[in-house]
């Protein structure tokens, strides 16, 4: 076999010449073309973060309008139909367009940096997953802004969502938009999985990887397997509505509960998928401020995986009130309660890390530490609703709304805010202002608890969720007013964060490579990182490559001497478990193919919603052509024999 073009990668040290060569190889074009064609994970990650945060703000504004409506009894700010669309769009936005993409954004930006490599495994797929996410967000919001937003809640039960009961285009926009978004999540998940398995720096065996790898990898394995369930459910719903099928129509022997099963087979693992990476932020960053490694790393890693494995078997706890057999409910109740075990392992590990450490209290630390409190509150209310008889009392009341907000804001938004304070210096080169940060933290923390702690009582006093107003004699007036006040306090806190970001980007203190004295690889390179991330591919000897001197490790990671890989746009491929050098990966150049492919998809889906067959055909053609160009074997990527053809 011809092995003539095998090459032993050269070892070297950093020199201006090397940096210049790598810069030439990795720097993308500027201008509009560069904007549309970039495959740099850092640019894509930042786009994800900014886009997801924009959706957070939109979802927040929707929430504030609802809280105005609910601040007092018998209010008429919104009509029932407007309220329906608003709470459904709020749920859709926060869960699908904010909570998951923001984590994809951070992981996209951070993964190659924490793993010691130069890009994701599939840079073009990375661009594709962002563009499709953006397209689906726009698609869904075009529906909302034309009065066709989802209006049956984010989980969209049939028969409400069927055409006879919901004749507008609302459900069609929601269905097709979700199928489109599912494509983005799936290709993104595939990219995370392969990146985790094949591109870690040499020596970073799986037990030395940062927790962010465990969290995001676990979440994306789940996404890969469960997103098809919801895409299928929404597609079948669209067929039922537009093409006369009867999947969910009980009059033609369809099964309405099938919708709930398919939705929650996806929905409950998804809940863990949108918290596990955020929990990993805490597991990686909290120890930095405690000045010691995470307590019980292997247990936390295994708990992450265990949560997900159990998470596949809990979906029916959303369906306890639907009249399922008692045996089935017992099983799912037990599985739901069992999730407490891995969750507690993580909680106690964080507590032990603080207890045994020397905490340095920064804004980021406060967000991470308060995650623990909010997680416990949300966990306990989750434990309560996992019990079948308790759930029968609480289901569809504001108690559930309080629970899910403690979980999602507590274990997604709070870690994300902490992550912004923690990694902003890496992304921009400047620190966020700590004094504004404190105001930012306390306003959001107090506002959040003011809004949602009393909401448990609102639910226990019997207020049903998803009702646009209530009578004055129900005993819910004061509690609702407090919640509304709290929601505006959160809003002020969020505005302060925006002020802080804008101000600090311009005039914040310079960060340098490692402002927090942190321990993982991303802090060994300049802030913001150069286009090629690492001039030398490091060799990793421990879980905390930058703390080895302090921890008196016997074998040290090699950061100053490493593989140069400067003979083209290249990085190192390693083996899945031990991360031994396996091959040299040729990385693709910038290309507009992902963007054009997304345009084709957008055209296709526009044709589907308008039922214009010509548009669908045009979309399909653009899609096929861009795929063909994309996949055509290239010499420079060594996908074909250079001497052949």
């Amino acid at each position, binding site marked *: *076999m*011809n*092995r003539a*073009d*095998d*090459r*032993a*990668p050269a070892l070297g040290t950093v020199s201006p010449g090397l940096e210049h060569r790598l810069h030439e190889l990795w720097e993308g074009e500027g201008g509009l073309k560069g904007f549309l064609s970039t495959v740099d994970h850092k640019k894509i990650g930042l786009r994800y973060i900014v886009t997801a945060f924009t959706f957070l703000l939109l979802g927040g504004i929707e929430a504030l309008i609802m809280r105005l409506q609910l601040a007092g009894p018998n209010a008429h700010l919104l009509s029932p139909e407007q309220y329906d669309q608003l709470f459904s769009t709020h749920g859709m936005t926060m869960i699908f367009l904010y909570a998951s993409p923001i984590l994809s954004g951070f992981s996209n930006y951070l993964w190659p940096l924490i793993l010691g490599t130069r890009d994701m*495994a599939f840079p073009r*797929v990375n661009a594709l997953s962002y563009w499709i996410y953006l397209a689906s967000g726009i698609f869904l919001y075009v529906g909302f802004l034309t009065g066709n937003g989802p209006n049956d809640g984010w989980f969209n039960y049939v028969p409400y969502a069927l055409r006879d009961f919901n004749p507008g285009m609302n459900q069609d926009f929601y269905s097709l938009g979700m199928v489109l978004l599912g494509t983005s999540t799936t290709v993104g*998940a*595939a990219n995370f*999985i*392969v990146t985790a398995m*094949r591109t870690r720096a*040499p*020596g970073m065996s799986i037990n030395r990887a940062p927790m962010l790898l465990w969290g995001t990898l676990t979440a994306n394995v789940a996404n*890969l*397997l469960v997103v*098809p*369930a919801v895409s299928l459910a929404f597609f079948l719903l669209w*067929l*039922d509505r537009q*093409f*006369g*099928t*009867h*999947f969910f129509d009980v009059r*033609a*022997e*369809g*099964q309405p509960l*099938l919708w709930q*099963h*398919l939705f929650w*087979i996806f929905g409950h693992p998804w809940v863990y998928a949108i918290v596990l990476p955020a929990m990993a932020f805490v597991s990686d960053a909290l120890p930095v401020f405690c000045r010691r490694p995470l307590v019980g790393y292997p247990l936390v890693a295994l708990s992450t995986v265990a949560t997900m494995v159990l998470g596949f078997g809990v979906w029916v706890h959303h369906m306890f009130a639907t009249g399922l057999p008692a045996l089935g409910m017992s099983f799912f109740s037990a599985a739901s309660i069992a999730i407490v075990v891995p969750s507690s392992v993580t909680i106690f590990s964080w507590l032990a890390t603080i207890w045994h450490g020397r905490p340095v209290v920064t804004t980021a630390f406060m967000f991470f530490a308060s995650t623990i409190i909010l997680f416990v509150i949300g966990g306990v209310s989750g434990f309560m609703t996992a019990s079948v008889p308790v759930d029968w009392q609480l289901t569809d009341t504001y108690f559930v709304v309080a629970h899910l907000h403690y979980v999602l804001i507590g274990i997604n938004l709070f870690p994300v805010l902490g992550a912004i304070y923690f990694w902003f210096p890496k992304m921009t080169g400047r620190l966020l202002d700590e004094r504004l940060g404190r105001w930012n933290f306390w306003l959001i923390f107090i506002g959040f608890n003011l809004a949602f702690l009393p909401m448990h009582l609102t639910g226990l006093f019997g207020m049903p969720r998803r009702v646009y107003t209530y009578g004055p004699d129900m005993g819910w007036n004061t509690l609702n007013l407090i919640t509304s006040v709290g929601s505006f306090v959160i809003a002020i806190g969020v505005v302060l964060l925006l002020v802080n970001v804008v101000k600090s980007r311009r005039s914040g203190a310079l960060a340098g490579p490692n402002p927090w004295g942190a321990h993982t690889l991303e802090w060994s390179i300049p802030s913001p990182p150069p286009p090629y991330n690492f001039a030398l591919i490091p*060799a990793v*000897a421990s879980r905390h490559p930058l703390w080895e001197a302090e921890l008196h490790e*016997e*074998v040290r*990671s*090699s950061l100053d*001497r490493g*593989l140069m890989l400067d003979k083209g746009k290249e990085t190192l*491929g390693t083996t899945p478990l031990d991360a031994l*050098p396996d*091959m*040299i*990966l*040729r990385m693709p150049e910038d290309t507009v193919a992902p963007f054009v492919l997304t345009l084709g998809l957008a055209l296709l889906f526009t044709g589907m919603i308008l039922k214009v067959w010509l548009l669908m055909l045009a979309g399909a053609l653009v899609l*096929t052509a861009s795929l063909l160009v994309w*996949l055509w*074997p290239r010499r420079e*990527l*060594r*996908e*074909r*024999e250079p001497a*052949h*053809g």
Partner: protein
Amino acid sequence: MAEVLTLHPGPLPVGPIGRRGLGWWGVGTLVASEAALFGYLLFSYFYTGATAPPGWMLEPRPVLKLALPNTILLLASSVIAWYGEHGVLDRKPAQALIGFGGAFLMACLFAAVQVLEWYAKPFHMGTSSYGSLYFVTTGFHMAHVVVGIAVLGVIFIWTALDYFSPRRNLSVSAGVLYWHFVDIVWLFIFASFYISPYLGFGR
């Protein structure tokens, strides 16, 4: 002074060699996700069937006259595709072209017979939930067959252009893997819709 981990990798392949490349993993994850999709379709079939009133199955004894030979044809196309892949691995261009061309034609024939099978059914998509499940599940499979036909056709062209060698052939292996998947998943669909009624499901 502590010892610093050193790294002296020997000669490493540049870019994908055989199946050893990221693209293989990429297609693997795609197949996993697609397999899940079909899993949910079959879950829908069995769940709806198990909870439906008697008489749900519109064709309690599904006719196998076309479906069984067609299934065998599809499986044979997988074997032929594998034969073509080995043509590339053994540097036998004629074998490769016969393999991919043969698989391409057999896939087209499968699709055509499947369309006949659809016309022969005494019910349609809108008759009841059974009709919906049958036509949408086999329709999803048909969509994958169409993609597979395109993949086999493109691989045929690339092979004819002499792009590959026993060493550089990831596109071929990945495409053939996808085709194996399309064929294997049909076995599950066939077993569910055509065989399980004979074993007592849906009565």
